[in-house]
């Protein structure tokens, strides 16, 4: 065997081994990442399902027990009214008004927690109802529009979109100091987009989807993004301090039921 051949065998052998090792390590890392992403998605789906179930139970409890107790208290007040003197009757009337307001708030909360409104009326109506309730506060100018023909989507997709919408509205009400809230549903045969915009304070968006607002950090955006990823949606956000916030969730429409609203 010649000197060159000996060198060639050793060199080729070592290079081949290094190459095989590199390919192996990269393959393992890529496969792991793919598997991990699947796992995370599954975990997220389970977490969302548990959240939905818990919300449904709380909603049921509020509606059945707390609501029932308030109704009973109102009835008892009504029975009490003729027995009271004028001053006490006025106070009893005020208590009754207060109980009615509490009852309405609980009913609204119960509705917003429940999936029922989605199951019966669909996302379009659920969003409109929620915005109507917000309009009654007279704090906001609400603009709501649907571009194109709205198609019902499957129940899970609609619930997830509704939860994203609720989270966004909740953020606006709690932090944005906005005056105008604009919600637009863009419907096309191939995709559906939910747009929520406000003219509030805006905020500084950090790379990890946490939000710096008035010196505090908030993490609701990550939840919205996670929820959107569950339905293969694209989550976009545009914001600037003092110039409001725009959120857009776009999903492909392969899973629509296919009848119009």
């Amino acid at each position: 065997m010649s000197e060159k051949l000996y060198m060639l065998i050793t060199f080729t052998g070592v290079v081949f081994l290094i190459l095989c090792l590199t390919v192996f390590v990269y393959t393992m890392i890529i496969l792991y990442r793919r598997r991990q992403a699947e796992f995370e998605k599954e975990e997220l789906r389970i977490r969302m399902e548990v959240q939905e179930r818990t919300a449904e139970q709380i909603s049921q409890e509020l509606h059945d027990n707390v609501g029932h107790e308030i109704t009973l208290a109102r009835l008892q007040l009504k029975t009490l009214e003729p027995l009271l003197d004028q001053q006490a009757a006025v106070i009893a009337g005020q208590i009754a008004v207060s109980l009615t307001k509490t009852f309405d708030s609980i009913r609204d909360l119960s509705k917003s927690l429940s999936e029922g409104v989605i199951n019966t009326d669909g996302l379009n109506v659920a969003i409109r109802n929620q915005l109507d309730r917000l309009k009654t506060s007279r704090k906001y100018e609400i603009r709501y529009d649907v571009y194109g023909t709205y198609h019902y989507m499957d129940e899970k997709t609609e619930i997830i979109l509704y939860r994203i919408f609720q989270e966004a509205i909740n953020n606006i009400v709690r932090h944005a100091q906005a005056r105008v809230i604009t919600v637009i549903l863009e419907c096309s045969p191939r995709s559906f987009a939910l747009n929520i915009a406000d003219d509030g304070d805006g905020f500084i968006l950090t790379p990890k989807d946490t939000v710096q607002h008035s010196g505090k950090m908030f993490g609701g955006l990550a939840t919205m993004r996670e929820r959107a990823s569950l339905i293969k949606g694209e989550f976009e956000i545009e914001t600037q301090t003092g110039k409001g916030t725009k959120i857009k969730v776009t999903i492909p429409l392969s899973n629509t039921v296919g009848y119009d609203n």
Partner: protein
Amino acid sequence: MDITMLAQRLLSTSELLALLAIVVVLVLSLIYCRKRNVPPYMRRLPFYFFASSLSEVVAESFPGVAIYIFWGFAVFENIYFFYFFRFLNGVFGQLPMRAYAVVSILPSFIVFMASRQPTDSVIGAVIFGSFTIVTLCIMYFRTLMVYPPTLAPERDPAFWMVTGITFYFLIRLPVFWFTPYFYTVRRQLLGDAVYSIQKFALVISYILFIKAMTCLKNCTC
């Protein structure tokens, strides 16, 4: 240059590199394996690296008497395998693996006891041990895919350690299987070439161990 001299030089270069790499791994393991958050199976690594570097030094210092220490080498091989079984058992953290390791070391021990020639005992021990260790490593990679841990493999010291172990033993298995054949058909230089490839593989696996040690630096495992 004479081909025999070239073979000797390549072999000694790879052996020198292996020695250098094991000393680096030993130093790093002494620094990082003592950290509080390091898993228990990693804490024992400095002992193993010390024994390995000692054996490398002995092999380097007394190449002429290597043939006379075959029995000792065979004993060391069994301890060596047992250590890796324990390490892999630590990675898996399951009792059946320990039982599996004990059962799998038995054939290697039987071959070791039954062989008349010291070389046969070493080759037998290496082939059985390597085969078992590679099987265990494949099980580790399978587990990694089926139940992916939260720690990404490129940050997991166990991943680099097991990759290093798999790589080396995968190379070792055919080398020890076929080297006697090359020597019997008087292809000693080809045998030497294959043997030096195996030594370079050892260097690469030590580099992977170094990577594992550097992962321990920021390990939250």
